[in-house]
């Protein structure tokens, strides 16, 4: 039996996608494609706007990680203004990004993936969601909701609103942090730290039950790219870019994100709105796959030498004992995400304990001093680049946004193919297999709204086609 499976829509991811599985003459999976079917076009309609508007405009790209866009955009603006922002502003930006990572990772783990992990990949879709989790594990669900709330409170304190704030601007931040707000946020830290540690323990306790998933959910050699401190410490806001290979060799280090065009190419495919960046030294537009690299929590933990905080460093050591110095299974994104949550809470604690965070000087003023600026930071899902060109008046003439999910696109395609080859036999796709294909994509926590700059929906459609492309079966889950 030969044919093609198409999975459309893919559920519990941020965006709209479908999957095509092509079978060969023997009925085994020959190829798999992950298509993103949304389009939004921020890079075009931002042209003509003042650069000072860009943070608030591009924050609208996504409702889950608007802070990431605020930061990358504001940093691009800093570069165009040619300013060094005040120390308190950097502290507040870091605080906001840490809160963002906590809330986004909490959403990914508790709302989207925990139902798979705690209720089982073969559980009925009707109960394999946040409600099912709340019914069966209310304390876990409550913990997730509170952790996300903690992150959102931080974001609101710095950027003005939980979603689509505008308080992070070119030159710094719009408002200093009050002592009252600082005290209120500090009141959350103990609970958040306990919740992060308990959740990590819970996940580690489940891992032995997912040995097959660890082996088949995107376990392949690739490069890893992320920001890293000059001393090798985990970074999310500053530092340079480090690239590591599957054997733990540092391929490049201390790279300036502003030079990204010299080392990253962007490949576009006609069957998806999601572009696929690749590492130029190993590939070209004719064949980007040799330049496959991964970004996000897995990459950040792979490239760093240490997390930089005590509890997260202990967790990193245990992680590496299990997964090796370089974790290659995309299933470990979940694990890496939870270690990052713990590390973020520790860093938030440290930032809030520092009196300098309430310094009232939080913004540098300047005019247009450069015609191009690149801003980059670590979004929850990976490295994010905003690249702007402006005229003499600061009006945008060109925009390029390189989004984390896009950078994982080649890896997501390879992951779908690997899972399909492991679990799909013939044109029929049992629910449990469908769930695993979805879960394999979900491990990357893709945000298709960001990566295609498109409006988020969450359906799932799988089509099975034969070697000649003729459809054999379809599965749709709305």
């Amino acid at each position, binding site marked *: 039996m030969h044919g093609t499976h198409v999975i459309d829509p893919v559920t519990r991811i*941020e965006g709209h996608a479908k999957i095509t599985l092509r079978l060969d003459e023997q009925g085994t999976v020959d190829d798999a494609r992950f298509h993103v079917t949304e389009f939004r076009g921020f890079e075009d309609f931002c042209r003509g706007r003042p650069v000072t508007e860009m943070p608030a405009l591009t924050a609208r790209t996504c409702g889950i990680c608007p802070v990431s866009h605020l930061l990358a955009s504001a940093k691009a603006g800093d570069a165009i203004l040619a300013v060094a922002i005040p120390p308190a502003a950097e502290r507040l930006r870091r605080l906001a990004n840490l809160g963002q990572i906590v809330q986004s990772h909490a*959403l990914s783990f508790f709302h989207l993936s925990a139902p798979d992990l705690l209720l089982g990949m073969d559980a009925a879709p009707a109960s394999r969601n946040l409600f099912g989790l709340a019914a069966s594990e209310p304390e876990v669900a409550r913990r997730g*909701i509170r952790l996300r709330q903690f992150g959102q409170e931080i974001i609101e304190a710095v950027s003005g609103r939980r979603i689509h704030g505008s308080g992070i601007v070119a030159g710094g931040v719009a408002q200093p942090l009050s002592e009252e707000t600082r005290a209120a946020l500090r009141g959350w830290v103990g609970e958040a730290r306990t919740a992060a540690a308990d959740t990590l323990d819970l996940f580690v306790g489940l891992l032995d039950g997912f040995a097959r998933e660890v082996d088949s959910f995107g376990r392949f050699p690739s490069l890893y790219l992320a920001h890293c401190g000059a001393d090798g410490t985990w970074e999310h806001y500053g530092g340079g870019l480090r690239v590591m290979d599957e054997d733990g060799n540092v391929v490049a280090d201390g790279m300036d994100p502003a030079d990204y065009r010299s080392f990253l190419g962007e490949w576009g495919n006609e069957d998806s709105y999601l572009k696929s960046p690749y590492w130029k030294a190993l590939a070209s537009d004719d064949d980007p796959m040799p330049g496959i690299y991964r970004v996000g929590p897995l990459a950040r933990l792979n490239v760093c030498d240490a997390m930089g905080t005590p509890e997260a460093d202990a967790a990193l050591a245990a992680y590496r004992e299990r997964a090796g110095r370089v974790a290659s299974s995309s299933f470990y994104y979940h694990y890496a995400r939870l270690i990052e949550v713990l590390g973020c809470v520790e860093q938030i604690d440290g930032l809030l304990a520092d009196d300098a965070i309430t310094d009232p000087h939080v913004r540098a003023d300047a005019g247009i001093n450069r015609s191009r600026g690149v801003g980059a930071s670590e979004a929850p899902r990976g490295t994010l680049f905003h690249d702007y060109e402006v005229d003499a008046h600061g009006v945008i003439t060109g925009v390029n946004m390189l989004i984390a999910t896009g950078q994982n696109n080649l890896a997501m395609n390879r992951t779908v193919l690997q899972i399909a080859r492991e679990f799909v036999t013939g044109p029929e796709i049992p629910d449990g297999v469908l769930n695993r294909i979805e879960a394999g994509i979900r491990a990357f926590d893709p945000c298709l709204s960001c990566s295609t700059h498109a409006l988020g929906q969450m359906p799932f459609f799988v089509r099975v086609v034969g070697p000649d492309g003729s459809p054999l079966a379809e599965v749709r889950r709305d």
Partner: protein
Amino acid sequence: MNATRDGTPSCTLVIGYGSDLRADDAVGRRVAETVQARGLPGVRVRSVHQLTPELAAELGAADRVVFVDATVAADEVSVGWLDATPDPQVMTHHMDPAGLLGLASLLGSSPTDAALVSVPATDLGLGTHLSPRARTALDEAVAVVVDLAEAGYAR
């Protein structure tokens, strides 16, 4: 301020929701913000773009909740009573009031009473303005919400 049966001060949570950029869709938020400006004791207010799962935690800390939303299905301000209905189609970005109550209930703590105040909307186009009908209805809805919050309510 009202009191619960055990004598502790009761708390009413008012949640106005809608898009700030779609004209009358924001009227629920404007109602909530007007109520907040009055500083009523025992009343907490949230003005939000959408109902998200995190609000379940805040529902759990309230005795009563009043949702305020725009509607194109009614010509007058109206009050409806809500029951918790777990919604298996829960999204990460948004939920409906009954689904949010259902989630709060599953988490072990939900308000005793929940009401939805629906405010007439006629213009859902792009913009930050309110139509004349929504402006009039805003004042009426504020009075309804304040009555519910101050007097307590029973179905």
